[in-house]
């Protein structure tokens, strides 16, 4: 079982990357957790480049294809998904019929410094992923006031930590069912 984690934030010290670290601490021992770090290398989507997609795009498609499930942590920019993350998913979605996300179990989580924990971005991202054809878990994990939310690599609020465990467990379960 291979779980690919993607942070929608490029910032070093990102709270969403911290959230993925907290998720890694919750995964079962037999699940390989791989953090994909090359979001900044993905160029703007351009149909002219589709015949020979950039190596960074090919690499992302391969990483998704060889993973059993995806966990995406998104910040919220202007009530929506960061452009870089949306752009990467636009690349992955093509060609639609055979894209690497089709039927792939995906869960979405998010952190922000506001009261809302990127809850609107998570809803948008679920919508985008469902459109692409992924099997999206219908759950939010809004980590609000993220600057105070983490301690020693884990979520400080036990309710949020419990929710994160449920999301990761459901994701693993969904991937196992698909593999069976």
């Amino acid at each position, binding site marked *: 079982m291979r779980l690919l984690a993607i942070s929608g934030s490029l910032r070093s010290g990102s709270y969403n990357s911290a959230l993925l670290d907290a998720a890694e601490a919750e995964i079962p021992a037999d699940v390989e957790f791989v953090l994909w770090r090359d979001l900044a290398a993905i160029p703007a989507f351009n149909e002219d480049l589709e015949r020979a997609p950039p190596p960074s795009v090919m690499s992302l498609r391969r990483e998704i294809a060889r993973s059993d499930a995806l966990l995406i942590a998104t910040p919220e920019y202007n*009530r929506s998904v960061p452009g870089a993350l949306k752009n990467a998913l636009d690349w992955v979605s093509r060609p639609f019929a055979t894209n690497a996300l089709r039927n792939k179990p995906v869960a979405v989580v998010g952190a922000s410094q*506001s*009261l*809302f*924990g990127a*809850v*609107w971005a998570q*809803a948008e991202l*679920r919508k985008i992923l469902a459109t692409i054809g992924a099997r999206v878990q*219908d*759950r*939010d994990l*809004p980590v*609000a006031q993220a600057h105070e939310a983490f301690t020693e690599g884990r979520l400080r609020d036990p*309710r949020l930590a419990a*929710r994160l465990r*449920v999301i990761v467990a459901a994701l693993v379960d969904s991937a196992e069912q698909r593999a069976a």
Partner: protein
Amino acid sequence: MATGVQPFTGRYELDPNHSTFEFAVTHMNVSTFRASFADIDARLTADGDTIELEGRAIAESVSIAEPPEFREHVVRGTDFFAADAHPLITFRSTKVELGEDGSASVTGELTIRGVSRSVAARGTYQLPTEDPFGTYRAGLELRTTVDRRDWDMDWQVPLPGGGDALGWEVEITAQLELTRKD
């Protein structure tokens, strides 16, 4: 509604201990059932002519405790709040108008169980005034009526004598006491 120069400036935070966010719905066609949320927070930001109001409630903090199966159905069940999957109830304004006559009109996006719908609330406001301890406090009271089906809360049972066990229309009220932060 009369609109003038908006009377708020600065950033305000909710005093949750002196604020209420509740809903009321007809129960068994005989009475009004009310419940409130204990864990609430809100911000009001007044910048020039623009006011923004945003707030949230933790769904699990709803004042429905007993019996446990009732709480389970309403709070965690997918018929109502589905709080495990969607722990936050959120509101973000798209338009706030404060009239010179003390009236308030707020339009915004209310998100419950991951479903966002536009709502329009009306009410009153009180201008910031200094309390005995040097804090400036303002009041905002808002009310709106929504159809819970708009948020996919479709649970219903017909009554033997006709009518519904639970009203479709839900009145939502917010009584917000806001303290000025800068």
